């Protein structure tokens, strides 16, 4: 089963390779013969510098792609929202419809390649889209997104974590506002693994390797190139989740192949179901999926059996999704108002109850989420604070050279 998160991250595989036919058309004279890929770790596929927390990127604003003026009246709609399947609570949509007396029409996509290809072709026209850090630069270079006018987005300054008001991937939030944040850690069933806790191990990221062989057949890894390979890197003590060093990736690949052979490793992206139904006991996991996992437990099984570890100091994989307004939007003012609406803390809590993913809002502290009864206390580790986000190992875009290295290493793991 492929979840929204999996599809999102699979799109991230193509981070570099944005499936934008419109872009392709525009770049038809820049084709590179196969094998001519050169190592250039500083430049992304779109030609802009690769954004990293220590190398923030200010995305360009083009003369023919300016933000809308301030003080405009909202359009009559309907607002066209292009989103992942089940990645927003309908109650949040209903509130927006009531507040602005407009209709919101949601169209969904299943792969990011499909979505971007449609957007770039001009065959579809939507107002709001959900990009991700790893391919934001390409969407901007391709002029698929339009710059934002912050006068319509007061909630950005009022509620969003300081670190994401002007994030490293989009300094000044010129094209995006953050949507959800998530970590990638380790989930397990405490009732099947009593006493187990990665934090007690000398090498917590090696937990699957040390505990896995004992419970072979009950161990899972996310079927996601970036997160899967990152687990191998972390086990090897390599803390750069964007490394393009062949030796690093070879070490990660070897570690994962060992894991496959020692544990009869399963690859999937519905860890919340497998851990809940007990078919797997130990699994690399996304925080938001683990927050939702209690809903999948069989009747009579208490939520306390589910546990999730991610390093409290924030030195673990972390990322965030975002919203943007499309350049071809017919309702750009309404689209801005929608972005602002989703950044409202009340709406964010409503949204959490459905999607299970935390929004980076000052009000959405771990304590508040637990107090709302949205996450049981034993899964508090699925929730993070701004400071942890700042320390996190963020996954950014890769160069063309790096993207090929990563994919080949992952392919070797998946067929080992």
């Amino acid at each position: 089963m492929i979840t929204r998160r999996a599809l999102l991250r699979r799109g991230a595989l193509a981070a570099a390779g944005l499936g934008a036919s419109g872009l392709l058309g525009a770049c038809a004279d820049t084709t590179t013969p196969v094998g001519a890929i050169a190592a250039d770790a500083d430049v992304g596929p779109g030609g802009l510098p690769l954004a990293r927390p220590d190398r923030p990127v200010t995305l360009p604003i083009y003369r023919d792609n300016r933000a809308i003026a301030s003080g405009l009246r909202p359009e009559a709609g309907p607002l066209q929202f292009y989103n992942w399947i089940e990645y927003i609570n309908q109650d949040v949509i209903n509130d927006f419809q009531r507040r602005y007396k407009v209709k919101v029409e949601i169209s969904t996509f299943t792969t990011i390649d499909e979505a971007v290809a449609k957007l770039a072709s001009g065959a579809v026209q939507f107002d709001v889209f959900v990009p991700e850090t790893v391919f934001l630069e390409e969407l901007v270079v391709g002029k698929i997104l339009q710059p934002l006018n912050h006068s319509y987005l007061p909630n950005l300054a009022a509620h969003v974590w300081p670190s994401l008001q002007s994030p490293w991937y989009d300094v000044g939030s010129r094209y995006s506002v953050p949507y959800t944040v998530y970590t990638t850690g380790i989930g397990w069933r405490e009732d099947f693994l009593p006493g187990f806790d990665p934090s007690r191990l000398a090498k917590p990221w090696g937990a699957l390797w040390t505990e896995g062989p004992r419970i072979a057949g009950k161990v899972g890894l996310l079927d996601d190139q970036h997160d899967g390979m990152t687990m191998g890197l972390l086990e090897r003590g390599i803390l750069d989740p964007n490394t393009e060093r062949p030796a690093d990736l070879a070490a990660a690949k070897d570690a994962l192949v060992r894991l496959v052979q020692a544990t009869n490793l399963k690859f999937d992206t519905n860890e919340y179901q497998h851990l809940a139904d007990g078919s797997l006991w130990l699994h690399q996991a996304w925080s938001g999926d683990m927050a939702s996992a209690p809903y999948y437990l069989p009747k009579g099984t208490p939520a306390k059996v589910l546990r999730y570890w991610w390093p409290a100091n924030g030195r673990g994989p972390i990322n965030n999704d975002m919203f943007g307004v499309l350049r071809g939007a017919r309702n750009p003012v309404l689209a801005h108002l929608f972005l602002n609406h989703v950044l409202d803390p009340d709406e964010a809590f409503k949204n959490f109850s459905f999607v299970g993913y935390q929004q980076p809002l000052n009000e959405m502290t771990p304590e508040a989420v637990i107090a709302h009864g949205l996450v049981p206390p034993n899964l508090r580790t699925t929730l993070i604070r701004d400071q942890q986000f700042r320390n996190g190992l963020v996954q950014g875009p890769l160069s063309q050279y790096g993207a090929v290295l990563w994919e080949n290493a992952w392919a070797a793991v998946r067929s080992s």
Partner: protein
Amino acid sequence: MRLRARRPGAGSWRGFALPGIVWLVLFTVVPAYALLAMAFGKENFLLEPVPAWNPGTWNVGFLFQAISGAVPGGEFWPSVRNTIVYVAASLVLCFVIGYPVAYYVARHARRTKALLIVLLVIPFWVSYLLRMLAWIGLLASDGYVNKVLSGLGVAHPPNWLNGNAYSVILALVYGYIPYFILPVFAGLDRIDRHQIEAARDLGATPFSAFLHVTLPLSRPALLAGSALVVLPMFGDYYTNDLISGSPRTNMLGNEINLFVQGGPQKNLGACLVVVMMAILLVAMAYYVLQTARDTRRFA
């Protein structure tokens, strides 16, 4: 000069083939050429494939990578090997299970024939994906299959979903066997009973009549049924994803899916499809030759 006799109206009859030819060109030849153009194309700086429509500009770099990876010792060889073994095993099971079913319905079912045909068609009402998902419930550790086995006294029923090749093969058989049974049934149903009766009249035992008359006459149908199941099985990847999820049972379709779903090497994925098509062409060539031979023989 000797003129060939021309049947009156033959030209207009040939015209009836025109829609089919147009259809084939539009939806078989053109997509196949697009696949080749993609496989032998280049990449732009966004790592997206740019098709090369002109064969003079074809770049075979990825094809060499795909071919060298698909031979023993190559990076894709385990998946190619698994695919060939699983499909062959599934085909054998289709013969063992499907032929008797088709034979019974065609030759022995009388009043119940229509009902049995409906039952054979029923699986087509449910999507392949849903049928595979149903198997997860059936084969789970505490699923119905193991409950039945436990009830029968099996102390340690197998963990079917534990990345086992036999589970993938069983699921493939379950998923595709209706496509095998129906053409075989149709072929058996068309066999002239008088030929079998003639064999019996000439002293053949029932088994001998089956072996020397029914089985040879049903060979075209068996070949058609085999082609119908082998082709989709070869490209299947979702069955393995759902039933196993383990790299140990990776199939060629899984490799193709990995490269085509996303990432910077979609050309390589397209080249793997070309490799798969080349393997299937061998099987299809055998099918075409045998069918032509059978047509001449039984005409």
